[in-house]
């Protein structure tokens, strides 16, 4: 049993925890600890270092925690959800495997109740986060282009956009023909050397880990500086619960166990939870006291509720000519937000972002084709294969997921090896979501027709797409229907904060990493002020 004393303890080192630890480390002479249940990823082990990289996709750096199955990969029962959890547990969290999409929420996303009569309003506005989006872009290194009509206010200095390549130019032509909005993706990818990291050489599959370090995952964007600034990073260390003072107004300690079996308590003035939309409610729900019989911070009954997962609708088709569609960063090409906002002409509220994906490498193309029976072994093999390889166009539509009380994370009666209850998720697509999906697929098909693309596959929701885990400890002004205040502090406690995507009140229809980091920086900047320091923004 070991006790460790710090000023601030951050739990989790994903996008939120990394940003939080970094800002604390540059804001004063604080003694900071960050706990991470995984290890520091070793980029020399990423699949793209190897000639047989496509065979290595489903190994230690698979996005499926059940396939990795390491000590860090806590069990999540997602059998009651059509969308399965995809993640990475290690320093940098899921950004290690993300595609690098880094768009912001729209101002309207913070006021959906006022604007469209659905969801809930955030207690903060886009303008509150804007300087933190800029700060996050600056430390991360974001490629993009100023002037996007969908984001007229972006003032960040951006790196040059990721080139569209032949596939992007083809789609852009179609989008122009349809008179729809589009813009090159905002990408956490170095398109020129920045932050001590090299320019991207287009290895392609960013979502297997970037072996050259050009993708700005949180482990490479934040941690070199945070470690230089003496943040104590405890890897392979899992938080297991909290200790409180007698009045149960303050957290006095965080209990932990590490992979070697050592256990003990971290003591600090401030505790910040950044364990994502499942890990955060799990940890809080697992600590029950007399004052919090249903888990810490759950007096409103909203802890673990309102889970949003961003269902994806997927449409794939082929063109007759070679458009080098497998070349370039997999996820980051271009996006259209023509149908992002609510329209009175449509049956549903809110909307979606259409993203163009680059297609997989040759082995994965053949694997998928055989699984889907579009490629056959035998005399037609080569003909079938070349109908798809470098000729495939994939559209991924991120659907706005509105908060629904019944979509939730709760604790199973089963426990894992460290004694923590296993998290279960119960998630169903709402009627509004289903309507958006239907509409998104229709619009994708219209685009395909304009481009003479032959549709080969369409489905929704994509099963293993539960990367975006949001909403399960939402912020709000009213303690009756929210878990934290607008500064991420749990209503009933003086020194326990949340800084991750579980705070999201609505999901928007964009990848959340940019907002997670901006929100974490906003929360920590206010904590710095509370600690007597000077705010960064």
């Amino acid at each position: 049993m070991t006790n460790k004393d710090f000023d601030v303890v951050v739990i989790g080192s994903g996008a939120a925890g990394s940003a939080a630890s970094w800002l604390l480390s540059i804001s004063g002479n604080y003694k900071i600890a960050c706990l991470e249940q995984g290890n520091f990823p070793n980029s020399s082990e990423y699949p793209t270092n190897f000639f047989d990289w496509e065979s290595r996709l489903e190994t230690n750096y698979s996005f499926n925690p059940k396939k990795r199955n390491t000590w860090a990969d806590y069990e999540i029962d997602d059998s009651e959800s059509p969308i399965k959890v995809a993640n990475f547990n290690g320093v940098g969290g899921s950004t290690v495997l993300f595609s690098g999409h880094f768009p912001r929420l729209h101002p309207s996303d913070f006021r959906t109740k006022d604007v469209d009569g659905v969801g809930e309003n955030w207690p903060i506005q886009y303008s509150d986060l804007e300087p933190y989006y800029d700060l996050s872009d600056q430390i991360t290194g974001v490629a993009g282009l100023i002037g996007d009509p969908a984001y007229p206010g972006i003032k960040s200095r951006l790196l040059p956009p990721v080139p569209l390549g032949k596939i992007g130019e083809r789609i852009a032509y179609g989008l122009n023909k349809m008179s729809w909005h589009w813009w090159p993706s905002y990408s956490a990818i170095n398109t020129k050397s920045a932050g001590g990291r090299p320019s991207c050489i287009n290895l392609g599959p960013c979502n297997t880990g970037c072996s050259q370090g050009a993708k700005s995952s949180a482990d490479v964007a934040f941690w070199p500086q945070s470690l230089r600034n003496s943040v104590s990073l405890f890897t392979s260390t899992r938080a297991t619960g909290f200790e409180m003072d007698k009045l149960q107004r303050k957290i006095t300690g965080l209990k932990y166990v590490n992979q070697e079996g050592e256990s003990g308590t971290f003591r600090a003035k401030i505790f910040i939870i950044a364990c994502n939309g499942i890990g955060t409610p799990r940890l809080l729900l697992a600590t029950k006291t007399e004052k919090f019989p249903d888990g810490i911070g759950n007096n409103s009954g909203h802890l673990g509720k309102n889970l949003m997962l961003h269902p994806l609708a997927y449409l794939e088709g082929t063109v007759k000519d070679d458009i080098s569609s497998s070349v370039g960063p997999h996820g980051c090409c271009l996006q259209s937000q023509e149908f992002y906002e609510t329209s009175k002409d449509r049956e549903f509220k809110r909307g979606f972002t259409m993203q163009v994906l680059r297609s997989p490498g040759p082995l994965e193309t053949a694997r998928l084709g055989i699984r889907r029976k579009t490629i056959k072994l035998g005399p037609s093999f080569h003909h079938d294969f070349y109908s798809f390889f470098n000729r495939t166009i994939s559209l991924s539509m991120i659907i706005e997921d509105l908060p629904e009380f019944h979509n939730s994370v709760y604790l199973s009666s089963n426990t894992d090896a460290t004694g923590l209850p296993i998290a279960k998720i119960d998630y169903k697509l709402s009627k509004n979501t289903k309507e958006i999906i239907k509409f998104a697929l229709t619009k994708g098909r219209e685009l395909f027709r304009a481009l003479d693309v032959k549709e080969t596959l369409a489905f929704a929701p994509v099963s293993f797409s539960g990367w975006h885990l949001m909403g399960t400890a939402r912020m709000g002004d009213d303690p009756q229907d929210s878990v934290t205040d607008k500064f991420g502090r749990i209503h009933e406690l003086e020194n326990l904060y949340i800084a991750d995507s579980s705070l999201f009140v609505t999901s928007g229809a964009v990848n959340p990493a940019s907002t997670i980091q901006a929100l974490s920086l906003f929360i920590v900047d206010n904590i710095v002020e509370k600690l007597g320091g000077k705010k960064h923004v």
Partner: protein
Amino acid sequence: MSRILEEFLDFLIPVGQDNSISGSRVWNRLGKRTTIEHELLNFLEQKILNTEHTYEDALQLLEVSNPILCSSLTEALLEDYFEHPEVKTRLSQNHPAPFPIGYKLPSTDWSILEPVIVRSESTQKRK
């Protein structure tokens, strides 16, 4: 390698129009492939030898009667094929040592965005 096995692998991935690499040439014969090979040979001897069945029939029978073996065979054969240096070269994939070398994306002429900007400006004016 027995002739029947060789012929079946060459049926699954025949020589393409622009190369001479077929299934039997890339088949690795090591590790888990030894077991696959043994099981497959048994299957082919039972279903093909002394019958009127073609290799196409054999593949269909394999899919139905032993989907696990079929799936293992497919995965192993595809890996061996697409990781063969000659196939990689033909597909413009990277060569080993040093690997990876990446790709160059041609730079984009961003005037392609003009219609988006013009449309946005005219919408703003209408407002």
